[in-house]
C-alpha cells in the first residue's frame, strides 16, 4: 500500500513536470509519459493481462488499460496518464472507504469472546469457547466478556448488556441469575455454570444472523445485481459502435475524436459504485439496528419494514407486561384458598402467564402427584383431575363449552372461571399492567405515518378495549383463539394497499403462526428466548415496544440512503455517458463518474451504520 502511494506520487510529479516543461520534441514527451504511465498504472495493466490469460475479459483493470492505452494511440498522452493516475488515486480512496466500512462492521461484530476461563479443580484454564461443554464451570472476571450462556452459581456483579440490547443501564446479577454470552462483566467476579455450548450460545446466534442477513436480499439489491450484469456489456458494445460507426460509415469528423469518446465510455463502464454502496447501506442498517438491540434477519425485511402500513400488536406480553397477578378471588360453595388451590393445581403443567400467577398466589407448594389427566385447550383453558375431582379452569367459553351455565358473566378484567365436578365454584380475576413504554411506541408509530395500529388479543372485550383506548390504538379485536388471530391478520392484509406491508408484533412464544403469516413478524423480548428468535423476521431483544418504532426509523433511513446512491450513481454515469457521446466531456469527468462516484456513495452508505440515537 505504502509502496503504491510512493509510486503514484512519483508518477504524479513527473507528470506535472512534463506538462510544465512542455517539450517540443514529441519523442521526449512520449518517453516521459510512458515512464509515468508505467509507474502509475503498471500493476493495473499487469492484472489486466493476467485476467485475459485466464479468459476473464471486461474486468475493471482491463477496461482501464484499454481506455488509457487507447488514449496513447490517438496521441492523447497526457490524457492517457491522467486517466490512470486519477483512477489509481480514486481506487485508493475507495479502498480506504471500504476498509473503514469493513472495520466498522467488524467492530460491530466484536462481541465474540476470545476465551473462557474454565475452572478445572482449583485452576483456571484459558480455553477456546468452542471447546467448553455445557455443565462446565467458568469464571468471568471484571472487564471480561461472558463467553457462553449460563447461570451464576457464585458471586454477584453488574453486567453491561448494551452489545445485545442497546440498553445502557447495567444489569445486576447474583446467584441464580441467567447470564448470556456477549454481556460484559463490569466489576465483580462471577462463577458461571455453562448451560449452552458456544454454537448454541446467544452470541453465536446473533453473529450468525447478522452475517447471514445479507443472503436474503432486498429488491434494491436484486435490482443492482441485475443492472450490473447488463450495464458493463451494454456500455462496452455502445463504446465499440461509437468508436467506429460515426466516423467510418456516417462520415463524421475524425476517427481519433470518436475513439476518444468511446474510451470515455469504457472508463464509466464499471457499476462498482452501486455494487458496493447499496449492499453496504443495508448491511449498515442491519448493523446499526443490532446495536440498538434489534436483530433483522435479512435486508428484505428491513426494506419491507420501511413500507409498513399496518402494525398489529398482540396484547399480552407485548403491549402489557405479561406478568399477571391475582387481583380478586370470588368463591362459591368453597373457601377462597381452596379455589386457588384447585385452580393452581389444574394449571400446574402450563407455562401460560395466567397459570404462573395462579401458582404464585397459591399458599401451598404445588404437588404434582395430586394432578392427573391434564388436557390443555388453547383459547379455552384447562381440564384436569385434582385429588380425583374433575376441575375446569378457563374463560367463559370453556364454561359454555362444558355446559356450565350458572357462572358470573359480567366480571371486569381477565377472569379464570373454575368448575369442580361440573359445578360452578367461582372465579379468580387476574390483572396485567400496560408497559410504560407502550404509549410512546404507539404515538411514535403514528408520527411515522403508520396508517393503522391494531391490537389482537384472546382476552375479554372489557380489558382489551380499555388497554387499546388508553394507548390510542385504531382498532382492537378481542376474544380470539390463536388460529383466529391468523385469520384476522389475513383479513387485515387484504385491506392494505398492494405495496404496503403488514407487520405483526408478538412475544414469539404463542404466536408463531401469526408471525409467520404476516409480511414481517416481529418478536419481542428475544434475549434468551430461542423460540422468539426462530419464529420471527425481526427480533427485538428487550421488552420495549418502542423499539419497533426505532426499527422503522432505521429501515426508512437505510432505504433512503440506498435510493440516494442508486439515483446519484446512475444519473451521474448516464450524464457523463451522454456528454461523452456528444463530445462535450473528457476523460477526467469519466474517471470521476467511476471512482469518484463510488467513493462518495460508499461514504454516504456509512451513514446507515452511524450509531446516532434514535
Amino acid at each position, binding site marked *: 500500500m505504502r509502496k503504491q502511494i510512493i509510486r503514484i506520487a512519483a508518477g504524479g510529479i513527473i507528470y506535472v513536470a512534463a506538462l510544465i516543461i512542455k517539450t517540443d520534441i514529441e519523442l521526449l514527451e512520449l518517453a516521459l509519459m510512458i515512464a509515468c504511465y508505467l509507474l502509475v498504472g503498471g500493476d493495473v495493466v499487469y*492484472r489486466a493481462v*493476467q*485476467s485475459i490469460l*485466464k*479468459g*476473464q475479459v471486461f*474486468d*475493471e483493470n482491463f477496461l482501464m488499460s484499454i481506455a488509457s492505452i487507447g488514449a496513447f494511440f490517438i496521441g492523447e498522452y497526457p490524457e492517457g496518464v491522467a486517466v490512470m493516475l486519477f483512477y489509481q488515486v480514486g481506487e485508493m480512496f475507495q*479502498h480506504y472507504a*471500504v476498509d473503514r*466500512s*469493513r472495520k466498522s*462492521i467488524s467492530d460491530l461484530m466484536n462481541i465474540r469472546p476470545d476465551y473462557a476461563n474454565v475452572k478445572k479443580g482449583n485452576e483456571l484454564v484459558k480455553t477456546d469457547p468452542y471447546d467448553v461443554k455445557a455443565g462446565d464451570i467458568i469464571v468471568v472476571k471484571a472487564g471480561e466478556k461472558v463467553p457462553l450462556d449460563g447461570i451464576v452459581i457464585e458471586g454477584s456483579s453488574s453486567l453491561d448488556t448494551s452489545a445485545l440490547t442497546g440498553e445502557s443501564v447495567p444489569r445486576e446479577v447474583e446467584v441464580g441469575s441467567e447470564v448470556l454470552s456477549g454481556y460484559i462483566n463490569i466489576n465483580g467476579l462471577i462463577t458461571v455454570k455453562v448451560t449452552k455450548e458456544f454454537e448454541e450460545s446467544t452470541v453465536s446466534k446473533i453473529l450468525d444472523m447478522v*452475517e*447471514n442477513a*445479507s*443472503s436474503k436480499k432486498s429488491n434494491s439489491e436484486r435490482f443492482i*445485481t441485475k443492472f*450490473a*450484469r447488463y450495464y*458493463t456489456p451494454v456500455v462496452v458494445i455502445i463504446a465499440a459502435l461509437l468508436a467506429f460507426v460515426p466516423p467510418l460509415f456516417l462520415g463524421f469528423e475524425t476517427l481519433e475524436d470518436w475513439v476518444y469518446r468511446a474510451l470515455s465510455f469504457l472508463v464509466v463502464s*464499471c*457499476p*462498482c459504485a452501486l*455494487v*458496493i454502496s447499496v*449492499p*453496504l447501506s443495508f*448491511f449498515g442498517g442491519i448493523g446499526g439496528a443490532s446495536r440498538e438491540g434489534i436483530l433483522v434477519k435479512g435486508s428484505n425485511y428491513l426494506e419491507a419494514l420501511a413500507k409498513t402500513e399496518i402494525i398489529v400488536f398482540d396484547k399480552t406480553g407485548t403491549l402489557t407486561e405479561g406478568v399477571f397477578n391475582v387481583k380478586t378471588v370470588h368463591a362459591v360453595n368453597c373457601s377462597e384458598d381452596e379455589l386457588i388451590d384447585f385452580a393452581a393445581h389444574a394449571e400446574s403443567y402450563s407455562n401460560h402467564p395466567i397459570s404462573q400467577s395462579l401458582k404464585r398466589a397459591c399458599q401451598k407448594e404445588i404437588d404434582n402427584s395430586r394432578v392427573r389427566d391434564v388436557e390443555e385447550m388453547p383459547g379455552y383453558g384447562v381440564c384436569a383431575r385434582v385429588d380425583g375431582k374433575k376441575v375446569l379452569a378457563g374463560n367463559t367459553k370453556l364454561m359454555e363449552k362444558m355446559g356450565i351455565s350458572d357462572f358470573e358473566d359480567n366480571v371486569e378484567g381477565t377472569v379464570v372461571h373454575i368448575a369442580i365436578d361440573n359445578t360452578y365454584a367461582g372465579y379468580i380475576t387476574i390483572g396485567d399492567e400496560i408497559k410504560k413504554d407502550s404509549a410512546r411506541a404507539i404515538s411514535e408509530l403514528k408520527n411515522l405515518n403508520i396508517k393503522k395500529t391494531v391490537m389482537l388479543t384472546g382476552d375479554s372485550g372489557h380489558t382489551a378495549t380499555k388497554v387499546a383506548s388508553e394507548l390510542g390504538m385504531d382498532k382492537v379485536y378481542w376474544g380470539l383463539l390463536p388460529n383466529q388471530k391468523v385469520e384476522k391478520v389475513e383479513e387485515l392484509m387484504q385491506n392494505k394497499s398492494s405495496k404496503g406491508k403488514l407487520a405483526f408484533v408478538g412475544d414469539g412464544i404463542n404466536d408463531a403462526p401469526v408471525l409467520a403469516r404476516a409480511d414481517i413478524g416481529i418478536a419481542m423480548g428475544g434475549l434468551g428466548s430461542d423460540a422468539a428468535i426462530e419464529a420471527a423476521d425481526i427480533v427485538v431483544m428487550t421488552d420495549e415496544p418502542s423499539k419497533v418504532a426505532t426499527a422503522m426509523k432505521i429501515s426508512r433511513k437505510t432505504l433512503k440512503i440506498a435510493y440516494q446512491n442508486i439515483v446519484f450513481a446512475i444519473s451521474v454515469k448516464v450524464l457523463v455517458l451522454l456528454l461523452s457521446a456528444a463530445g462535450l466531456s473528457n476523460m477526467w469527468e469519466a474517471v470521476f463518474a467511476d471512482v469518484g462516484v463510488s467513493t462518495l456513495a460508499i461514504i454516504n452508505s456509512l451513514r446507515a451504520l452511524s450509531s446516532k440515537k434514535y
Partner: protein
Amino acid sequence: MKRTFRLEGLGCANCAAKMEREINKLDGVKSATVNFLTTKMVIEADDDKMDRIIEEAGKIISKIESGVTVKRA
C-alpha cells in the same frame, strides 16, 4: 451442509457478485453467497459433492480476481 470461508484480499465488489453467480451455477450447490463487505463466502451444498465444489469454487475465484486466497473461517 454449510461451509463458511474467508476470502482474503477481496477488493472488487463487482467481482464478488460475479463469483457468487458463477458458484451458484455449480452442480450440487443449494445456495452460495459471497459477501464483499464481510469478505465471507458461505456455500450450502450436498455433502458428497462438497469437496469438489470447494475446489471448483476456488478456481472460479482466482479466475475472476487473482490474488484472492480462500481460507476456512
